[in-house]
């Protein structure tokens, strides 16, 4: 069994071209290693990459946990997780953070009663799946508009949520952060940090109102149908990426990280169950 080309899908909240640029080194290495033409694709949203994996037009991608669950639920035979990113502190989790404008007087979920709540993308783990399960556990009510919150909206993505909260378009929203570092810097990494770095929001104007339990980082997945040697080669390439080329690893992992560790499907069973719960 041979492949004629290898296609890597990239998602995440950056400029499409920036994403392609920071993964270019990975592409070059893969091309060299596999000996076939390797291409990068940066579709507009999570769904684009997932559809590519399902349809067999994308061979490898770094998915979010929820995205992996969606792929698995659509077709269990489509992809398999190989590696997960390990943070500098050795963990492989991050958090969903609820936040609101300071001047709105909201400091907790309790204050959000009857207010407008904003999710990000429906396929995002921290932007929708986990908060949509954990928040009702705290409030004791469902996430339907008008039940506890006055209205529940999807803003479309982490960046849009931050801006929507900043504008007052929604009263509170959720986004992701690594939970490390200081609030006023927007944590060490995550969507808030990027917004701060861009000068988009002033963390003094925002308050944290909620934090989830740790969420497992999404896996790097490859298509199951790929030849075994391709899977092995790519796993090896990623696993040694940090030691081979630190700069490249920084780009691929979107920041500082310790490296990779192997992971299997079982680690995401919880997320899959959660996702099933949210389907009708």
């Amino acid at each position: 069994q041979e492949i004629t080309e290898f296609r890597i899908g990239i998602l995440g909240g950056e400029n499409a071209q920036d994403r392609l640029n920071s993964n270019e080194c990975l592409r070059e290495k893969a091309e060299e290693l596999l000996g076939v033409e390797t291409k990068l694709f940066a579709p507009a949203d999570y769904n684009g990459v997932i559809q590519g994996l399902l349809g067999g037009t994308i061979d490898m991608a770094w998915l979010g946990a929820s995205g992996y669950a969606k792929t698995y639920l659509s077709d269990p035979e489509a992809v398999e997780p190989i590696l997960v990113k390990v943070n500098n502190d050795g963990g492989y989790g991050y958090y969903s953070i609820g936040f609101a404008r300071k001047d709105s007087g909201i400091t907790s979920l309790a204050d959000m009663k009857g207010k407008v709540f904003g999710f990000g993308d429906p396929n995002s783990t921290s932007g929708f799946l986990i908060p949509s399960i954990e928040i009702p556990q705290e409030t004791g009510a469902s996430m339907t508009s008008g039940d506890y919150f006055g209205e529940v909206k999807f803003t479309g993505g982490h960046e849009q949520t931050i801006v929507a909260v900043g504008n007052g378009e929604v009263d509170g929203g959720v986004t992701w952060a690594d939970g490390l570092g200081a609030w006023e810097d927007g944590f060490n990494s995550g969507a808030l940090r990027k917004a701060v770095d861009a000068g988009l929001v002033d963390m003094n104007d925002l308050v944290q109102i909620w934090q989830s339990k740790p969420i497992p980082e999404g896996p790097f997945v490859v298509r199951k149908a790929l030849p075994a040697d391709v899977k092995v080669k790519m796993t090896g390439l990623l696993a040694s990426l940090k030691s081979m080329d630190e700069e490249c690893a920084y780009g691929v992992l979107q920041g500082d990280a310790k490296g990779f560790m192997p992971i299997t499907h079982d680690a995401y069973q919880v997320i899959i169950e959660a996702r099933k719960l949210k389907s009708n």
Partner: protein
Amino acid sequence: MTDLTAGQGELARIREDYTALTRRKRVYGGILLILFVSLMAAGFHTADDRNAGGFVDGWRRILDYPAEVLTEALEKSAQLPGHLVHFLPALVETLNIAAAATLLGALGGTVLALLSTRGLAYWPRLIPLFRRIADICRAVPEIVIALVLIFVLGGGPVPAMIAIAIHTAGALGKLFSEVAENASLKPVEGLESTGANWAQRMYLGVIPQVGPNFVSYALLRFEINIRASAILGFVGAGGIGYELRNAMSWGQGRYDEAAAIFLLLFVTIVAVDQISDRLRARLTHGARAGVTA
């Protein structure tokens, strides 16, 4: 049979000229054909190459997605009526965006058209300016204006409405101006001679002439705008597009919702198409179509 015919030399010249013309036509036609075919081939090759999945493999999977959606929708078909009712308000919002944008765009387009038509313009020297304004309004895709406005005004129907209205004003401005160019100037001059001002001349002298055509074009635009409004919802501007995107991108588990929304949208688009088709035929062919109808 002599008197009508050309001389022998003349005939030879005609033959030669015609053969040369045919040859030239063939050469140009051939070049054009080769150019077109090679452009298509090269373009197709490039697109295929830059696409993740290939053209040849793709066909086998073309029904995968619809099958996935339909299977789930059929499984849960009992919930369909509930979904239809649930998403109706979003559909109404989408229709409202389209209707309001068409209305505002048509008003803007009328003004732009009157200002940029020779013989009618209030400032004849500024005709090129208003033409360029219409061109630019037309050239900017709705999505651009909508996304920028969402950043400033926040999500919801208003940015979409403004974006579509601007584009509509440009597009209708051009079409209207073509219609107005053919309007008779006599009534306008007649009104001018009584001391009527510009607004009166346009409203009483031009609009009655071009009205039916304007309305017909505006209806056509309304059809287009419903689609545009749905698409803008897809990128964040509310309405049925927003619901569709959420259902579709959630995927498996909510495909029944996606199917319901899709059904609503499809039926609406087809229905509006048909109704406006009839209305437009009536408007442009006038009474004749009314008789045969």
